[in-house]
């Protein structure tokens, strides 16, 4: 009897991490696009109605514009973004050897500005930074997400996963409570998605502008009445990294439109 109980307990232990995590299997992963209504989908699908494309156009102009005391444009090093930036955003956040940490696409743009253009960093969520990131990420539209392959990223993915599973705020909710366990249900009138970051930076109709994944994460945090991490903080980058590893295989949609 005790013997059987031990076996039952061992089986339970062996399967428990998967059960507790409630992680979404690869073939059940769905972009937020799948949760939207037909009107919002149509808005995203047509490049002449997708307001995110306005930012992509601005980004294209900035790509070719010389700036900073080095008087260099992005294009002077990277050439035509259509070929040089294809697939790049699909593996961000990526490991930065110099700092020994993962960096987001926004941070990479600013590192390039500091190191190669000798220009001042663009503030988070500023129009120019969003436009450049949107332009770069747009070159990866349709490319499957492959972030988090670098073995050096492992501890940071773990940190992001822990943050995703950790309850926080006055409502005492973790990301996983909605986005792993309760997607397809509704929170007030809005569908709960899986939280797959496929289309960032994306145009949110609620924001009336383009915004980064960090902005989205911060609004979820204020939603559960938690103190949001600062833009560019290691915690937000780790969360972003975990989310991208969780969305592995889904195609990029930048610039997506979301309600």
């Amino acid at each position, binding site marked *: 009897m005790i013997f059987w109980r031990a076996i039952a307990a061992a089986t339970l232990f062996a399967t428990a991490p998967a059960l507790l995590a409630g992680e979404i299997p690869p073939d059940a992963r769905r972009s937020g696009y799948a949760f939207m209504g037909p009107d919002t989908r149509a808005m995203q699908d047509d490049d*002449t109605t997708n307001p995110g494309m*306005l930012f992509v156009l601005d980004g294209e102009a900035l790509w070719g514009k010389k700036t900073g005391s080095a008087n260099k444009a992005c294009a002077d090093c990277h050439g035509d973004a259509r070929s040089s930036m294809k697939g790049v955003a699909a593996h961000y956040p990526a490991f930065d050897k110099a700092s020994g940490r993962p960096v987001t696409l926004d941070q990479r743009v600013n590192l390039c500005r500091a190191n190669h253009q000798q220009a001042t960093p663009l503030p988070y969520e500023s129009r120019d930074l969003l436009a450049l990131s949107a332009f770069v990420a747009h070159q990866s539209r349709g490319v499957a997400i492959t972030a988090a392959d670098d073995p050096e990223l492992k501890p940071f993915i773990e940190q992001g996963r822990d943050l995703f599973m950790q309850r926080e705020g006055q409502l005492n909710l973790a990301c996983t409570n909605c986005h792993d366990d309760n997607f397809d249900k509704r929170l007030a009138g809005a569908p709960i998605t899986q939280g797959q970051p496929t289309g960032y930076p994306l145009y949110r109709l609620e924001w009336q502008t383009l915004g980064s994944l960090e902005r989205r994460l911060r609004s979820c945090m204020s939603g559960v009445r938690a103190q949001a991490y600062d833009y560019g903080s290691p915690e937000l980058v780790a969360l972003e990294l975990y989310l991208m590893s969780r969305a592995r295989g889904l195609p990029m949609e930048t610039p997506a439109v979301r309600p």
Partner: protein
Amino acid sequence: MAALINVPAKAKRGDVIEIRTLTSHIMETGFRHTAAGDVVPRDIITSFTCRYNGAEIFRADLFPAIAANPYLSFFTVAKESGKFEFEWIGDNGYSSTASASITVE
């Protein structure tokens, strides 16, 4: 400012064609306040016009309740090859133009 214009490149004479325009603008209502309590001044597009070979075919007045990056679509009859000119005018001397050409067979 960036604008996205969708006019069919070709049309048959007499066809009803759809023209779609999307332009960058924050459309600040003038009703919002900063955290410090100051009113954020109104900054909106107030008027849009479309000319087809110089003749005005569509005009719209815009108001504070219109969303950022206004999208306007309308129809006209393809009469002759030529050029559509678009103009957005707004607060603080804002003015932006765009154009698109069409071949009518």
